[in-house]
């Protein structure tokens, strides 16, 4: 027991929270990569696309959780609402980041790849994308941390995850579960953040080689 909550309960809620915040992170990344690429490839697409995805971020989370059943035909309690909402928020943050990252690849590098006979698709995947990894993972870290925080709001519509400890504690006038929930949320956010940072380091060995010299 910790703060009046069984350890096994905390573990289950952490896993639920990880699922609800983490899966959208992957889905959002997969959708943002082509969107961001389109925005760099066709310059005129960038302003409307970045403004458009940015608009998603203006919708308050609780409002989005509640409106999605109306649009998707899901039930209010469905996990799908939270997963779709978090994916939308991830896309809102990442499309711009992916565009920035791909746009930051030096022109000389692109030209060298083209001169070596790389087609556009191959160059994007093997040259541009790896070079954009530091920028993209920086955005991914921000999205991961904010996803973990936003998911807890879903407790208000009855979807169970760590935020459930907040509502339970509040309803019983008991600070214990709330503090356990906050601690677990922060820990989960930090672990995800550190994990993505480590992944970024593994994916960009040339940056370390440069620093060692």
């Amino acid at each position: 027991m910790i703060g009046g909550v069984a350890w096994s309960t905390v573990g289950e809620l952490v896993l639920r929270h990880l699922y609800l915040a983490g899966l959208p992170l992957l889905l959002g990344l997969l959708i943002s990569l082509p969107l961001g690429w389109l925005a760099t490839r066709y310059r005129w697409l960038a302003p409307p696309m970045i403004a458009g995805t940015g608009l998603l971020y203006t919708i308050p989370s609780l409002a989005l959780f509640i409106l999605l059943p109306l649009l998707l035909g899901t039930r209010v309690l469905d996990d799908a609402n939270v997963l779709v909402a978090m994916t939308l928020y991830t896309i809102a943050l990442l499309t711009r980041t992916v565009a920035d990252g791909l746009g930051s690849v030096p022109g000389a590098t692109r030209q060298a790849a083209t001169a070596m006979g790389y087609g556009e698709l191959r160059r994007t995947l093997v040259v541009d994308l790896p070079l954009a990894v530091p920028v993209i993972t920086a955005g991914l870290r921000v999205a991961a941390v904010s996803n973990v925080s936003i998911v807890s709001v879903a407790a208000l519509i009855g979807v169970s995850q760590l935020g459930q400890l907040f509502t339970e504690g509040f309803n019983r006038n008991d600070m214990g579960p709330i503090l356990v929930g906050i601690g677990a949320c922060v820990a989960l956010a930090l672990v995800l953040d550190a994990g993505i940072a480590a992944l970024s380091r593994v994916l960009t060995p040339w940056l370390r080689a440069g620093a060692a010299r």
Partner: protein
Amino acid sequence: MISLTWQWLTDPATWTGPGGILAQSVTHLRISVIALALAALVAVPVGLFIGHTGRGRWLAINVAGAFRAIPSLGVLFVATLILLPRLSGDLAFELPVILVLVLLAVPPVLSGTYAGVEAVDPAARDAARGVGMTESQILWQVEVPAALPLVLSGLRSAMLQIIATATIAAIVGIGGLGRYLIDGQASRQYEVMAGGAIVVAALALLVDLVMAGIQRVVVSRGLVEARAG
């Protein structure tokens, strides 16, 4: 579902009166503006100091990052449980909420401000020093105008977070548009929840557009043209 929601939204009775959408919007905006103003009062001077002197930068980055990880719903409950029994009247509900909203808004405003000042072209700063400007003249006549776009971006994203969290805050009993979302759920009236959600999303969008408009008006012409060219 959709037609019920539409019916609720288009019923004049939904909009007027003490618990109507108009009154709740005013409450929502009042709380949000107070919180943003208080946050700016703290974060802008500190951000200017950090940006101008370069001192405390590390602290600002890490504090802002760590704050993002703290779930606002949890903090809202903690603040309410601690403060509610010690306060009375309307203030008892609103004060903990405003406190949490301010805490939430400080990091984006702070990082926008110091990043804005820091990003000022060093050549512009040197030129100002070269023509004999004092440090405070450099800050107010060169750095602040040049930093304004990022400061305002920080204020905009802070305001979005404030409006979203003020919605959630209906759960601890304050007024505002969040009431429809929370009360609608309690009474199992999905049309009230959905209608309220549409109104709060529209309000957030509207406020963001207004702030974007302000940003366009107050940012120096020189900056806009320099970037376009």
